[in-house]
C-alpha cells in the first residue's frame, strides 16, 4: 500500500451566521487507494480521537451519482480530475507534500450551513418551477405508443445525466445555474412527452433561476469543464433557443 502525507487547509465555519476561516491540518499515511471522502473520514477519525470537532461534509452514495458531495479542491470544483465527483476522486492523483485547499462550493444562492456543507435548495426550486412533465399517476398510454428515435433518446439521456451537485454554479464566474437548468429543459424539450408544456416550462424555469439570484451565462465554459457528467453547454444553447421561442410566441 502506497501512502502520502498532505497539508490540508480546510474551510471551517460553525453555521450560516458565524464567520468562517481556513484551518491547517497535517495528515500523514494517507493510502493512495482512498477516495477523497475517505481521506476526510480518516482526518475526522483523527480529529475525534484528539477531542476536536470533525469537518462536516455532505456525502451519500459515494458512487458519483447522487450529487450530494462536492467541494472546491485547490480552486477546482470536485478537484483536478475531469468528469469526477469528489467521492470518486482518488488520493493517487496527489503527491506527498502537496497542500490542498478545501472549501465549500461558493455562490450567493448556496449559503454555507457548516464547514463544507451548503444549502442547494435553490436548485430544487428551479425544478419545482417546471422541470417535469405534468402527468398524474395512472392512465399513461402504453410505453411503446410513441416511438422515439434512439438518437433522440440518447441525447435526452445525455442531458438527464445531471446529478444536481452544483459544481457548475460554483465554477461559473457569474454564479449561473444555466447548465443545470439547461440540462432539464433540454431533456424534456427533446422528448415528445415534453412538448405540451414546452414553452411554459422554459419561461418558468428561467424565471425561477433568475429569482434565486443565479447569474447569467457569458460563455466561459467553466461549468462544462468541471461537470462530473460532462454535460455539454449545448444544452445552455438549447435552453436559450427554447426561451426565445417561448417569449416570441407568448400570447
Amino acid at each position: 500500500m502506497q501512502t502520502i502525507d498532505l497539508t490540508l487547509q480546510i474551510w471551517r465555519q460553525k453555521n450560516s451566521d458565524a464567520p468562517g476561516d481556513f484551518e491547517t491540518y497535517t495528515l500523514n499515511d494517507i493510502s493512495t487507494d482512498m477516495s477523497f471522502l475517505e481521506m476526510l473520514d480518516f482526518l475526522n477519525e483523527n480529529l475525534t480521537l484528539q477531542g476536536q470537532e470533525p469537518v462536516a461534509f455532505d456525502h451519500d452514495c459515494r458512487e458519483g451519482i447522487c450529487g450530494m458531495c462536492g467541494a472546491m479542491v485547490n480552486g477546482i470544483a470536485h478537484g483536478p480530475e475531469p468528469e469526477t465527483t469528489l467521492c470518486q476522486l482518488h488520493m493517487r492523483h496527489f503527491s506527498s507534500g502537496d497542500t490542498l485547499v478545501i472549501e465549500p462550493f461558493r455562490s450567493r444562492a448556496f449559503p454555507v450551513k457548516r464547514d463544507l456543507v451548503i444549502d442547494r435548495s435553490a436548485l430544487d426550486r428551479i425544478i419545482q418551477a417546471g422541470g417535469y412533465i405534468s402527468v398524474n399517476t395512472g392512465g399513461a398510454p402504453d410505453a411503446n405508443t410513441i416511438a422515439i428515435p434512439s438518437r433522440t433518446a440518447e441525447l435526452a439521456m445525455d442531458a438527464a445525466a445531471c446529478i444536481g451537485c452544483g459544481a457548475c454554479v460554483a465554477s461559473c464566474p457569474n454564479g449561473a445555474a444555466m447548465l443545470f437548468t439547461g440540462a432539464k429543459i433540454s431533456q424534456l424539450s427533446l422528448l415528445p412527452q415534453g412538448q405540451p408544456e414546452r414553452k411554459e416550462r422554459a419561461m418558468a424555469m428561467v424565471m425561477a433561476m433568475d429569482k434565486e439570484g443565479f447569474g447569467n451565462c457569458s460563455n466561459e465554459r467553466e461549468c462544462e469543464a468541471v461537470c462530473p457528467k460532462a454535460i455539454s453547454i449545448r444544452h445552455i444553447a438549447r435552453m436559450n433557443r427554447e426561451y426565445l421561442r417561448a417569449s416570441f410566441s407568448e400570447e
Partner: protein
Amino acid sequence: MKLHSHIPPGPLAQKWDHHRLTSGLISPANRRKFRIIVVGTGLAGTSAAATLAEQGYQVSAFCIQDSPRRAHSISAQGGINAAKNYPNDGDSVLRLFQDTIKGGDFRAREANVYRLAQISNGIIDQCVAQGVPFAREYGGTLANRSFGGSQVSRTFYARGQTGQQLLLGAYGALSRQIKAGRVTMLPRREMLELVVIDGCARGIVTRNLINGDLENHPADAVILATGGYGNAYFLSTNASSNATAILRAWKAGAGFANPCFVQIHPTCIPAQGTYQSKLTLMSESLRNDGRVWIPKIVGDRRDPTAIPENERDYYLEEKYPRFGNLVPRDVASRNAKEQCDAGRGVGETGHAVYLDFSSAIERDGAAVILKKYSNLFQMYQRITTSDPLQRPMLIAPAVHYTMGGLWVDYNLMTTIPGLFAIGECNFSDHGANRLGASALMQGLADGYFIIGTSIAHYLSANPPGYVTPQHVEFLEAQKNAYDRTQRLLRNNSRITGKKTTVTTMHRELGSLLWHHCGMSRNRAGLEQALTRIPELREAFWDQVCVPGIGHELNQSLERAGRVADFIDCAEIMLHDALAREESCGCHLREESQTEEHEARRDDAHYAHVSVWEYKGEDKPPMMHKEPLLFKDVNLSQRSYT
C-alpha cells in the same frame, strides 16, 4: 401480536381487482382533510408522496439528505423488470410472477408477488410518460436486456443509470406537488420516534439536522420508505440508508419479518483496505456479456491475460449450463465464496474472481460493449485503475439488499394500524432472495400503484385530525428522543477509561455480522455472535466519543444514533438466523445441505415468515410465524443447471 395478511379471496389473478373493489374510498373533496407522513424519498417514498398528493391528500415528506433527489435508489444501475413481452420471447405476468417467487426460493407471499407482476407494466408506461429516457431500439421502441434468474429479456434500462432516471422522474412528479402546495417537503430531517396513540400511528418526531431542533409532526397515517438495513454490516453497497426508522417502529410494536434475509451481491469491486467506507457495485447486467472464471491451477499468479483459455475454469457456465453466468445472485455469490474458500480466488486478498469481457468484445466489438456499459467501465477503472476492455474485472460478493423488513399485510400496513412500510423497508415481495431489476419495480409498484388504495381504505375508517403536536404522547416521544441524544453525547464530557469512535464500533459490528451472519451460517457461530452483541452494546454506550453538541449540525451524532440502532438490529438478525435452521435463498445454513454441498431448503418446517416482536430492553424478542401457502406454484428445489 396478530398477523392477518388480509390476502383477498378468489383466484390469484383476480385478487388485486377484488381487493380494489372491496377497499374503502375517500371522496376527492374530503382527501385534503387528511395529512399523511412519508419518511424517506427514494423510489418508494417519492412516488408515494407524489401520487397521494395528486389524489388530493396533504402530504409531509421527509428525507435525511439535502434534497429528495439523492436517496440511494439513485445508485441502482441495471434496470427495472416488467412483463411487457416487447421482445416476444415468451414473457407474461405469470412468468414474471413465477420467476420472482422461485428466485425468492419460495419464501414470499404468492398474492403479493402476483400483484407486483401485474402492476409492473403500468410502471413502465408511467415512467415513459414522465420523460424517463429509457434505452431504445433504432426503430424507436423500448429496448430490453436480461437479468439473472430469468430466460427472457424483460429489463428496461437507461444506460447504467436506471435508478437515477426513475428517481428523477418521481422527483419531478414530487416537485410538481411541492409547487402546487400539496406536499410539504422537509429535507435534512431524521425520524427519531414514531408516535403511537390509542394503538394507531399518529405521527413522528424528527431531528432537524441543520440546527438540531426536535420537531413534532402529527398526521393521520405514517408511511415508512426508509430503505434497508444492509449497512449494519458496515461495508455494503448501500449509502447512508439506515435502520433507525424501522427500529423505532419495531420498538413501538411493529413486527420485523425475516430479518436474517440479506442479499449478498456477487459482483462488487473487492475491498481494498481498512479505511474503506463502502463497496461499489458493478451491475448484474454485466453478466449478460461478462464471463466469470478463475484459473484452473490453484495459486496461479499469472496475469489473467496470460492464462490461456484451456487453463481457465468458467465454473458457472460449467455447473449451470442453462443459465450460465446469469444464475441468480445468491447462486453466483455462493459459488464465488466456495471457490475462494477453497483457495482458488484471485486478486490481492484472494477473495475475488474474474469477470471477463474479452469474448464479448471479440464477438461484438468494443464499441457495442461500451455503448451498454461505458459508465460502469469508467467507474471500475477510476476506482481500480484497471481497464476492463484490456483486463478482466476483479469482483467479489458484498452486502447489497435486505429482503427482510417490517412485516406488512396485503395493504402494506404493519402490525401498527396506520403505519405503512413500502419499498425495501418492508419484507413483502422478494422472499429469501431478490432477483435483479426487481427492487426498482417493487419500490415504484408500492409507491405509485398500491399505497393509494391502502391509505384510502385505512382512512375511510379513521376520521382526520385526531391529534395535535402538543398531545402528551408527542411530548413523551420528544423527551425520549432528547434523552437518547444526550446519552449519545455524554462521553463528550465524561471521563471514560477507553475512548473509541463510532466508526470503530460500526466496523467491529460489521465484521461480526459478515463472518457469522453472511452467506453461510451455523449454530455455533450465530450463538457466539449473539453473546458478543451485549458486549458490543455496552462498549458502545460506555466508550464511544461523540464530539459537539445536540443543537447544531452534528454528523458524528447522526452516525452514532444510527450505529446504536444497527447494534439492536443485528441482534434481531442473529436471532432470526439462528431460528431458521434451513438453507434458503441467499444463505446457506451449514447444517442443512445436500451431500453435494448444495443448499437444502426445508419446506416442512420453514415455509413461513418469521415475525419478531419487541418485548422490552434486556428481553429476547419473540417470534411469530405467518405460514406461507402455495397454491399456484409448485414448491420445487430451485435448479438452474
